[in-house]
């Protein structure tokens, strides 16, 4: 069993429990266990793009430093810190690259960290779990673990911005990614391409400008629906929340009944691997995926 | 002075004895004292039984009672205000319930008055320091509650009255033990983090003088944890509290009924007139009077103001002859002499040892007996340990706890104390700590009944300021219980009371009368009280103090 130092991020412990629990379950089945970093802190998202505010970079650098310390407790591990949330992934990756390019900045940040007996020496690589699945485990092995192919599921991968942006943080080709498609197909589902695969969902504007999010979600879902998708697959708890919850709002306003359930990619893996249903926490979803799964006889 | 792990070489020699005997002592049970032995050790050693530091009260409801000199001095003091300079025609606060004191009892009383129907704005709480600067937050070890099936309120009662030398008022002791489970339920519902064991039951320890495992705790911050949760609830109820504004005198009306109080703002130096239908006195105890010259565990404001104000208004007192000396105060290092070493340390298994490393007494006798046994060892034998500043003490073998209950027990259960000693370079998981009795608790106080009424109308009593609940000696864990039980009862009773009460014209006549009485006594020294805050400035400074004309 390979072990990875795993950084959950705050949402995996709150409204995206289904994401975390399914990912951990399938990671074990694939002999690549995700082991949580003790006492991790906020990744520091959404990452600052200022040049002069190192304060906002302390959080991600501290995560990298704690992950490095965590490696000592792990077996057969590499210098990878694995994330699930795409916002965390993007933030940690960007900062890791930034401090590689600017050793002076790292020195200043370390000066703060050293007072807590922590220090970072640019020796970690940030990996999204999708990268681990593709590059270290391979779709073949995933396919061989499938006990219940997801037949009838026409799932449109929605990458969102953070898996692919910016250049430093991308996990796949920026304009033509395939990792989610390949994964879906290895699970026996049909992947439906949507041109809005990374059209921003409105992100954190949900806090105070909900209408912006509503407009984005409507377009994203419609683009998938007209191409025949009956579900969406995502890797970001904020995209998931926005798309799931805003569809509900639209449904309530318009009386529509054709909303698309939103799955984390790991939930679909857990279903195909025959893991127990509870770990999906479908009860946390606004658009209940169990209705579709029952129709398709996948439960 | 060379220190090794916080101790001198001389002390180290004795610690070697302690280390040598430890493995032998793990299973060694020192016998309890018989009732006769207890009597003897108390009479010969306990300050309560020493006649040369006590005298009879010269006036008032308890005239003739023999009490410690320091207490008599306070009760026979002149007021700190001139009643003629106070304008009672202008009322600053007109409320249903005035609560004097904002520790555990006062805060519980305010909450329960509100729960029982008194609107928040009809309650006023006066606090001498900040809300919660009180002995309550310093109680570490726990709270006694007979809730387990193996226990019962009757056994709790028997423990309490036996510990109190059968001088407790039976109805009060009954109220104390019978309300205990209700208090625990209340605390749990508010979210107090009581320690649970691995089966989800309350973690319980035995305390000095208890016959059941009944001490419920929240690590070694039990008082702090209970209080901060209760205060948080108080704040959610929006009950008004005046901080740094103690009461300095009660007000009465023409019938002699207590009708409010004069409050004094310690920072702006102005007074406030409060008219109240019911006044609840919850001012706490008297540790800062340093009875018999002992150091104290008490907080900065523990100066017996409440007992004095009530006595001036003609209230009856009780059991003020009796003072609780906690058997285990710190005796070393010098900076923390007198600070409490919670009884939980002994509850967890630490033994009391002399210089030779052998046990001095059974570690969990009732507090007064345990304290007397330690005083005897230090004063009447040569089996004591002397600190570099000449303070005598005995060892409390804390490392034994780790031997019995496993490594890490101290860090987990006695975090506050471990931290305190660490600050002075002493590791109590490895080395024993030096202790000597310290002034801890005012056993007696203002007499009241089980509904908290004092002997005068309009004045209710709750908490350490009261007398009668504990008789001549309080058992560990019954004080955190008392403040909650009687605070709650006072609040409920006050809510009933205010609907049927009319207050007459406010006056300070009882204070004037008091002054005349004192004049007639021909006292040698004229003192003024309430003391409000103790004096710790150095003599060099005090000699140079001057009052400027304004």
């Amino acid at each position: 069993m390979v072990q990875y130092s795993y950084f959950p991020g705050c949402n995996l412990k709150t409204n995206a429990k289904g994401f975390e629990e399914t990912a951990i379950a399938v990671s074990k089945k694939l002999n690549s266990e995700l082991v949580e970093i003790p006492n991790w802190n906020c990744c520091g998202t959404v990452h600052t793009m200022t040049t002069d505010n190192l304060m906002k970079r302390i959080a991600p650098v501290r995560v990298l430093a704690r992950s490095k310390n965590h490696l000592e407790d792990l077996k057969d591990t590499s210098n990878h810190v694995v994330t699930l949330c795409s916002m965390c992934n993007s933030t940690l990756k960007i900062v890791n690259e930034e401090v590689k390019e600017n050793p002076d900045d790292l020195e200043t940040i370390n000066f703060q960290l050293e007072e807590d007996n922590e220090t970072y020496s640019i020796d970690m690589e940030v990996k999204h779990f999708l990268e681990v699945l593709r590059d270290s485990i391979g779709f073949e092995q995933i396919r061989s673990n499938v006990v219940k192919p997801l037949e009838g599921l026409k799932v449109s991968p929605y990458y969102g911005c953070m898996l692919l942006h910016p250049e430093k943080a991308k996990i796949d080709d920026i304009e033509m990614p395939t990792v989610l498609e390949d994964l879906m197909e290895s699970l026996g589902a049909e992947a439906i391409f949507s041109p809005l695969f990374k059209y921003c969902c409105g992100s954190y504007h949900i806090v105070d400008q909900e209408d912006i999010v509503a407009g984005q979600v409507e377009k994203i879902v419609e683009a998938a629906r007209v191409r025949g998708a009956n579900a969406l697959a995502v890797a970001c708890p904020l995209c998931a929340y926005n798309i799931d919850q805003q569809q509900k709002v639209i449904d309530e306003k318009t009386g529509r009944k054709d909303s698309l359930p939103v799955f984390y990619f790991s939930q679909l893996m857990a279903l195909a691997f025959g893991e127990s249903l509870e770990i999906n926490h479908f009860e946390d979803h606004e658009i209940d995926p169990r209705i579709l799964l029952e129709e398709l006889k996948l439960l | 002075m060379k220190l090794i792990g916080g101790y001198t070489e001389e002390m180290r020699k004795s610690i070697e004895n302690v280390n040598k005997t430890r493995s032998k002592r793990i299973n060694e049970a020192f016998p309890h004292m018989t009732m006769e032995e207890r009597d003897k050790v108390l009479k010969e050693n306990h300050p309560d039984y020493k006649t040369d530091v006590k005298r009879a009260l010269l006036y008032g409801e308890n005239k003739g009672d023999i009490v410690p000199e320091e207490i008599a001095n306070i009760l026979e003091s002149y007021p700190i205000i001139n009643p003629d300079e106070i304008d009672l025609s202008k009322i600053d606060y007109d409320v249903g319930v005035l609560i004097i004191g904002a520790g555990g009892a006062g805060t519980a009383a305010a909450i329960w008055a509100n729960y029982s129907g008194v609107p928040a704005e009809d309650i006023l709480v006066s606090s001498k320091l900040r809300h919660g600067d009180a002995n309550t937050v310093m109680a570490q070890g726990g709270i006694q509650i007979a809730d387990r099936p193996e226990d019962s309120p009757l056994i709790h009662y028997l423990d309490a009255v036996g510990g109190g030398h059968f001088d407790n008022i039976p109805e009060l002791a009954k109220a104390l033990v019978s309300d205990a489970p209700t208090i625990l339920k209340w605390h749990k519902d508010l979210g107090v983090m009581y320690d649970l064991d691995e089966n989800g039951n309350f973690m319980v320890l035995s305390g000095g003088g208890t016959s059941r495992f009944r001490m419920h705790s929240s690590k070694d911050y039990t008082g702090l944890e209970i209080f901060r949760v209760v205060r948080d609830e108080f704040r959610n109820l929006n009950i008004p509290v005046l901080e740094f504004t103690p009461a300095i005198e009660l007000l009465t009306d023409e019938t002699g009924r207590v009708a409010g109080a004069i409050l004094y703002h310690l920072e702006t130096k102005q007074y406030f007139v409060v008219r109240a239908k019911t006044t609840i006195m919850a001012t706490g105890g008297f540790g800062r009077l340093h009875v018999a010259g002992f150091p104290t565990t008490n907080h900065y404001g523990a100066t017996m103001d409440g007992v004095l104000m009530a006595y001036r208004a003609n209230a009856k007192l009780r059991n003020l002859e009796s003072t609780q000396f906690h058997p285990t105060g710190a005796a070393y290092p010098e900076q923390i002499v007198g600070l409490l070493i919670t009884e939980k340390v002994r509850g967890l298994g630490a033994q009391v040892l002399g210089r030779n490393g052998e046990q001095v007494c059974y570690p969990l006798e009732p507090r007064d007996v345990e304290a007397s046994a330690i005083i005897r060892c230090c004063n009447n034998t040569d089996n004591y340990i002397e600190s570099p500043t000449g303070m005598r003490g005995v060892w409390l073998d804390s490392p034994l706890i780790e031997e019995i209950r496993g490594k890490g027990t101290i860090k987990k259960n006695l975090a506050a104390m471990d931290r305190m000693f660490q600050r002075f370079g002493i590791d109590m998981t490895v080395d024993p700590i030096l202790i000597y009795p310290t002034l801890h608790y005012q056993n007696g106080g203002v007499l009241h009944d089980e509904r908290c009424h004092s002997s005068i109308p309009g004045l209710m009593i709750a908490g350490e300021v009261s007398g009668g609940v504990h008789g001549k000696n309080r058992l560990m864990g019954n004080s955190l219980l008392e403040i909650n039980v009687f605070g709650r009862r006072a609040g409920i009773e006050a809510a009933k009371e205010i609907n049927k009460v009319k207050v007459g014209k406010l006056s300070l006549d009882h204070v004037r009368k008091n002054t005349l009485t004192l004049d007639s006594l021909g006292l040698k020294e004229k003192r003024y009280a309430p003391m409000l805050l103790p004096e710790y400035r150095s003599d060099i400074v005090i000699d140079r103090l001057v009052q400027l004309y304004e």
Partner: protein
Amino acid sequence: MSYEYIKFGQEEKDFIEKIQEISGQNIYSCYQCGKCSAGCAFSNKMDKTVNQLIHFIQMGQKEKVLKANTHWICASCLTCTIRCPREIDVAALMEAVREYILREEPEKMKIADIPKDVLNKLPNIALVGSFRKKTG
């Protein structure tokens, strides 16, 4: 390329320099192709398009920049940044304008005004993200 032939006053100069300093970008690299605005998922909500805002900055027109809603509509998706033919980190310019404002007026978003029932259900990442972008 630069606009040296334009005579900027001190205030304009200070503003341009500050935005360049915070963002680390050379504002005059932009040749106004408009690709950022074309690809922006939020152009329809912006009162000034992204390239317009950049032009205002180039011209030192501080008041116009601060009045626009462009930088507050931007959700930092970085599409503009990855597509800019001049390799300007356009999103960083948006961030710099936000920062410029927040350093004077730290609570662009009034946290106390967020309704309790919204706080009750929002994913915490939304709060973390928006507070990092909209409060100083």
